[in-house]
């Protein structure tokens, strides 16, 4: 069996113009990139477009990645989060000027997978708390949003995020705490947390 190539090898081969390496990198990271992008943009169709754009940006700026400064995955998540935040700003502005579009489209997109068969009370409660969390995250300041999503969903360590964002570890810790507090307050208001 052929062992999978490391990220570093794939990057070197992509820079040489090897399509297969780029294809492998797409297979390896598409779900993780999409999940970060989706949670920021919160629109299924736009998240797919944005994921594709991240991969285009990825190979165009690949020579900027410095292996001594950050792991490849950390660099890539940053690229994805920044791109998603740019798209989210544009989307938010558009929704503010065309509120009917927001009310027409969002309920269908917010529906979790397999929602149609979730009838027990526990499932409903879970859906409500996820909806609250989703709204809270949408309203978070950009740094807090990035730290929150990268820590809770991509398992990046806080010191990695600090390096990635070029800010102090203390700032990142405070950002994560404030973001978590905002979610906690919202969930508490509805009695969702003990």
């Amino acid at each position: 069996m052929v062992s999978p190539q490391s990220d570093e090898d794939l990057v070197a081969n992509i820079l040489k113009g090897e399509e297969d390496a780029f294809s492998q990198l797409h297979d390896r990271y598409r779900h993780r990139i999409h999940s970060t992008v989706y949670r920021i943009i919160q629109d299924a169709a736009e998240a797919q477009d944005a994921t594709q754009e991240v991969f285009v940006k990825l190979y165009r700026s690949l020579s900027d990645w410095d292996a001594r400064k950050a792991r490849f995955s950390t660099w890539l998540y940053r690229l994805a989060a920044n791109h998603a935040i740019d798209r989210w700003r544009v989307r938010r502005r558009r929704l503010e000027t065309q509120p009917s579009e927001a009310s027409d489209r969002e309920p269908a997109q917010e529906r979790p997978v397999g929602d149609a068969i979730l009838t027990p009370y526990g499932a409903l409660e879970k859906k409500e708390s996820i909806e609250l969390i989703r709204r809270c995250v949408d309203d978070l300041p950009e740094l807090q949003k990035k730290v929150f999503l990268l820590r809770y969903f991509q398992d990046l360590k806080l010191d990695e995020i600090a390096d990635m964002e070029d800010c102090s570890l203390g700032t990142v810790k405070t950002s994560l705490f404030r973001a978590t507090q905002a979610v906690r307050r919202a969930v508490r208001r509805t009695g969702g947390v003990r």
Partner: protein
Amino acid sequence: MRRPRTRHYTEEELLLHFLGEETPGVKAEIAAHLLECGECDAIFAEYGDLVGKIQAWAVPEVPDLIWQAQKTRLLAQYRQDYAGGRRGGMISSFLGILQSAWNYALENPLPTLAYIAVAIAFALERTISTFRLDRILPGASEVFEILRQVF
């Protein structure tokens, strides 16, 4: 020897402890405190519950067919960009910069106008002094002055 802790831990410290991100060296101390302090332990448990709720936020599945279609488009673009070797890559990078600048301008129209005005004013000043336009066009310096005062 460390003195026993007399105050409660802050919520931030408890959250960071839950995530294994506490300041190095205090892990065992917090763990011991939680065994003795019901109040901190309750907050710690609440954060555990909350983090569980947060991480239950799933992302809708994207069908494989969509991923395959996306990969096909990406590979075609990658092939096109690399067809001209580094030259293709440089053109793409340049277009990427233009695209980013355009996006910024759409999102921030006022600061963009201000940047453009400053650039024009700077260019005018340089143009007037380099080509001595004030001798040929007597009003050029006044126009520059007005622009400088406005911006």
